[in-house]
């Protein structure tokens, strides 16, 4: 686990078809100017189907290796490269049929197959690609960084299919680690049996149900005592928006104001999804919920959502950030900062977490909904570091996509009138303008104003 390799990553949209990579490869591998010897091929003239470089992807489970009857292809566990052994190869070419990507070729001039070997870790093709359509790098950073850490939830949590929260809590606890006391107030987190049911639990750290109202204060009490006796124990809240923004807000606000050393993750699915999709303080304007139904007299939720991240920023927390699981590396970077910050004061992560069941969208769209929320500036990604006095966007969106692209994905917004969509657009514009003003002015005058 945890061993991610460098590979050749191709960006077909950047490729101009110049063919320099093929020439460089032929030169390096066969000392030839004939690109028939190149192990990378630029595909052209396929109309809309594909345009760009094709090269071996050094698959984790390579089909070429499986299909080779001579044992001539092997995956090198050290480098990740799929290696070809000329002495064993019988030139049957079955591997070229086995590869689904066209990454291994038959070279008619040499009468055998050939494939990319990364030039021993210094690929020539990358050096000559002017538009940078080929890069040699590791893509699987999350896997590399988190893979060796244990998933501290046993398999079998009872979340809905497509649930974003399950991904979030598994990644979070894996990163935070075993020296942790976990609080899961009423909601979807314990609803999927995180604390357990009837004496059984699959959570490998001490966990408990606080009340919906007292997550931050109970956790602060745990942390305080361990600090009192000189033990460093991480405390972590995995709370919903009700436990953070509604009835949980007083204890959250008090704990943040006192600078309690707590890592508080608000998993915002914009309503009480575990109890049947009722509205909360973070439910957006116009939303259908089971307590803001849509009918001839009512048009969905009448007020705007409470924007918790800025409210928490004004508590002078050590760290505040917004995040989505669709940008996983960004989430882990923020989580690491939050963990460190929570050793000195209050750290608050607000994670936008779509609910396939309550928001009414197909389960496979869970990540796409998040990307669209970011792309439309509905949920801007930013972070605030108190000590560094830094407020910054982590995924700035200068040219937001159409609000309809986001709203159109969600059943809870299906009934929205043009006026209601305009209201959304205005709310989003006001919010992003405010955030941009903070980012431009910097946090120092903001603190002075406090």
């Amino acid at each position, binding site marked *: 686990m945890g061993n991610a390799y460098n590979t050749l990553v191709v960006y077909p949209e950047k490729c101009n078809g110049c063919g320099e990579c093929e020439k460089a490869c032929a030169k390096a591998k066969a000392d030839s100017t004939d690109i028939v010897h190149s192990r990378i091929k630029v595909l052209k003239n396929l109309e809309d189907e594909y345009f760009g470089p094709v090269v071996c992807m050094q698959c984790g489970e390579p089909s070429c290796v499986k299909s080779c009857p001579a044992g001539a292809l092997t995956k090198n566990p050290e480098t990740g490269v799929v290696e070809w052994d000329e002495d064993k190869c019988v030139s049957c070419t079955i591997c070229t049929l086995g590869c689904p990507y066209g990454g291994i070729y038959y070279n008619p001039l040499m009468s055998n197959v050939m494939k990319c070997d990364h030039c021993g870790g210094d690929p020539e093709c990358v050096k000559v690609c002017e538009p940078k359509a080929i890069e040699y790098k590791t893509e699987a950073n999350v896997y590399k960084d988190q893979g060796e850490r244990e998933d501290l939830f046993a398999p079998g949590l009872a979340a809905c299919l497509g649930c974003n929260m399950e991904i979030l809590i598994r990644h979070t606890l894996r990163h935070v680690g*075993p*020296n*942790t*006391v976990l609080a899961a107030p009423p909601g979807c987190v*314990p609803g999927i*049996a995180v*604390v*357990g*049911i*009837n*004496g*059984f*639990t699959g*959570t*490998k*750290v*001490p*966990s*408990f*149900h*606080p*009340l919906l*109202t*007292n997550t931050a*204060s*109970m*956790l*602060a*009490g*745990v*942390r*305080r*005592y*361990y*600090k*009192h*006796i000189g033990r460093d*124990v991480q405390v972590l809240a995995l709370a919903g928006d009700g436990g953070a923004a509604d009835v949980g807000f*007083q*204890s959250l*606000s*008090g*704990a943040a*104001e*006192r600078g309690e050393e707590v890592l508080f993750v608000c998993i915002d699915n914009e309503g009480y999804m575990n109890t049947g999709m009722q509205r909360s303080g973070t439910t957006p304007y116009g939303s259908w919920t089971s307590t803001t139904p849509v009918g001839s007299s009512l048009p969905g939720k009448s007020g705007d959502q409470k924007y918790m991240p800025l409210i928490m920023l004004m508590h002078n927390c050590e760290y505040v950030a917004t995040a989505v699981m669709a940008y996983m590396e960004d989430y882990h970077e923020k989580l690491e900062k939050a963990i460190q910050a929570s050793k000195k004061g209050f750290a608050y992560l607000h994670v936008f977490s779509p609910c396939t069941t309550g928001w009414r969208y197909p389960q496979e769209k869970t990540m796409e909904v998040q990307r669209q929320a970011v792309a439309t500036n509905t949920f801007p990604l930013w972070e605030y570091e108190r000590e560094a006095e830094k407020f910054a966007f982590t995924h700035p969106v200068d040219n937001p996509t159409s609000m309809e692209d986001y709203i159109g994905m969600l059943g809870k917004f299906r009934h929205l009138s043009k006026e209601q969509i305009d209201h959304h657009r205005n709310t989003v514009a006001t919010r992003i303008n405010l955030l941009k003003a903070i980012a431009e002015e910097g946090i120092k005058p903001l603190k002075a104003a406090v």
Partner: protein
Amino acid sequence: MPKRIVVDGNEAAAYGALLAKPDMCAVFPITPQSSVGEKVATFIANGDLKADLLDVEGEHSVLSMLQGGALAGARTFTATCGQGLAFMFEPYFRSPNLRLPIVMCIVCRDGITPQCVWGGQQDAMTVKEVGWIQMHCENNQEITDSIVMAYRIGEHSDVMLPVNVCFDGNFLSYAAEPVEIVDEEIADKFMGENNVNWHAALDPERPMAIDPLTGMTAPGGEAFARYREGQCKGMQNSLRVIPEIHKEWKELTGHDFAPLIEEYRLDDAEHAIMTIGSMTGAGKDAVDVARDKGKKVGLIKVKTFRPWPLKAMVSALSKIKALSVVDRSVNFGWNCGPLYQEVLATLPFLDKKIPLVSLIGGLAGTDLTIDHMAEAIKTAEDAAQGKVAEETIWLNKMY
């Protein structure tokens, strides 16, 4: 040498905490409790008490932080009353179910509305079925000593329950009396090692899930019933433990308080009054006055109200022919005082039937005087002679 000081009841409570040396003290103001928290905070600020001061944003968080601390292993202390207790109810309800031996004073205050910031036991009586042990104090010495003893009672392995040390707002909270503070070494010896979270802990070194969903299908519903049964057993066990701890405290300090109920001049009494809290002093004086006039009257003081000390009560009631019960709060469902109703439920356990009278007085900070207690004695005497008041008698009424 023990130190003799003059302090009001709230300071006496803070001295109790000082002797017990809790690891965490949570403070939030509410009249007439506020100066308990102020005094404790001062002890901590001056380094007299090496506890963590939790200066939180409301009573709900007061008890929530103490629960978190206790689950990590801390000895904990706080105080509240009235609306503060009402606001705290959600975690309050849960403390005994988690079997956490938290010690909390209730500086008894009457309930709004009418808006009122003065003494009355409506707060403590309203939460009597929640599962905390309740001990009611007569004077400031009893407050200090009961707080120290409360830790040993709550933390006893056969008990494992939170304890309320209750005392009357205004009449004890602000009344100065001499109190003897025992030596630190004696208190330390008495307190011993803490015994807070051996049964339920939030500790990465011994991970467990606290309070998973429990109910419905087997073994959930059965487990739930077992927890409840165990909690009731713990309450009943405390009726054995409370006298043991009082005895141990008496042997170390010479301070002698009746652990469950106190019988005052009861052995040869024909009738009696029952009191709870600070009114007991006036009650005893009224009994003495009546005795001087040749009346065969006694008094039963309730120290431990929860759990209800049934056996001790049956033994005391067996000695008399009639009883008047003076309550400082109201049972709205029965048109009587809550203490009266408890005695009513005790009557079937007696060999004989004795008439009871309910009197309610001292609400909202009004005084219960020797004259009021004399009235209570008179109603008991009348009852013993067959003239039983049919309805609750309201003292300090506006006529």
